């Protein structure tokens, strides 16, 4: 089935774009309301899937982006002669996780959670653009508070931090926590 006018205009814009394009800008360019943009985007995304195009249209960092089909990555790697982007250490990933879930958060708070000095890791993450200062805390010393950036969302392929796996899923189940707690606490009659 052929694309609707709105969907193909959006596709054209994404073809020319080098960064995710916000739905608001699309609405402005097409001169249509936001819900019609959302509808056209849906149509476009579905059409790429159904017709097994070589690219996909994804929602990322608050915008839309055209990118290559993930399952064709081997061809793209050969073509672009690129390796896997450098991996982050588990220390960096854990620190990033703390910032992502508790933002805005200070270095001291991260250090307290990780139990180690995190200056180097925080600097690395800031240098790579995955986190950035987002104000200062009230209170003594007014430490810098950090938050994650759009680059972080792009690196993880997410539209917003709301898409992060929910913390509940990551914590050991409540039964286990409860059990562990009960076991470690001296029972009154034991």
């Amino acid at each position: 089935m052929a694309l609707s006018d709105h969907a193909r205009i959006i596709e054209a814009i994404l073809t020319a774009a080098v960064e995710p394009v916000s739905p608001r800008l699309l609405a402005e360019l097409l001169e249509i309301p936001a819900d019609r943009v959302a509808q056209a985007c849906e149509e476009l995304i579905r059409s790429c899937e159904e017709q097994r195009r070589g690219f996909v249209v994804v929602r990322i960092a608050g915008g839309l982006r055209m990118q290559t089909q993930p399952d064709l990555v081997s061809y793209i790697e050969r073509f672009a002669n690129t390796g896997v982007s450098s991996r982050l250490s588990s220390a960096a990933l854990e620190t990033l996780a703390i910032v992502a879930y508790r933002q805005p958060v200070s270095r001291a708070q991260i250090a307290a959670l990780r139990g180690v000095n995190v200056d180097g890791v925080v600097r690395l993450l800031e240098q790579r653009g995955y986190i950035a200062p987002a104000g200062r805390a009230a209170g003594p010393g007014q430490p810098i508070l950090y938050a994650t950036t759009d680059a972080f969302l792009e690196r993880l392929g997410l539209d917003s931090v709301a898409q992060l796996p929910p913390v509940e899923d990551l914590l050991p189940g409540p039964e286990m926590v409860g059990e562990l707690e009960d076991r470690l606490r001296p029972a009154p009659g034991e």
Partner: protein
Amino acid sequence: MVVTVSTPVYEGPLDALLHLVTTHQLELYDIPLGDVVEAFLADMRSTGTVDLSALSEFLVILAVLVELKSRRLLPGPDEVETDEEMEGWEARDVLLARLLECRAYGAAGDAFAVLAERAAASVPRSAGIDDTIVVDPPDLLEGVDPGQVTQAYLRATAPRPVPVVDLAHVTVDTLTVAEAVGELVAVLPGAGRVSFRALTTHLTTRLEVIVRFLAVLELCKQGRVTLDQGSTFGDLEIAWTGHAGTGTGTGTGTVDGDVGPDEYEG
């Protein structure tokens, strides 16, 4: 690496063992922890490598198992004073909460790695606008000053981090006890008898003072100084004895990460 164990009543990942035990699906009483350790050591020997993260995971889990089992084996806490006992448990609760939280963030980190890997499989469109299209360029440099260009250059040319062994658990403070020892060895012989307070008045942070204190203890241990404290909370008097100790090389430990300067940020 997943730590696996193999015992007569249980075979599988150690992580899962802890889960089974704490959810009563497995009776801890029946598990010889010695076998668990043996199995782990045998496993480690057979692979011929030591995975530090696996090793520490093993230690943590095993410590919890030992704790749980000893509670099952020992008689109740009747003879212990309640206050003292509760204090211990509160500390344990804090520890437990922290352990759980750390595991959650560890799991989140793993999830992030998977997401990043998946995202890296796609290359974004980057060809830009066709050359044939006339662009009447809006000033993208609006609000950018030369200083920002310089900053951007420095950012871009900063040495890229090379993937290395994760040393995040090691505190990389520049101020080490060894250095403080060296400093004191240079100062003390000519100073006669000095108080610790006098030695540290010029220091600004608590950490610096702590490092000097550890250095003084180190020198005392080596027999190169004598320490004297007149009263509780009184001034600590330090006197150089000049005995050649075992050398300054023994005090090379850095200050423990828990007292990193960050702790005093806010």
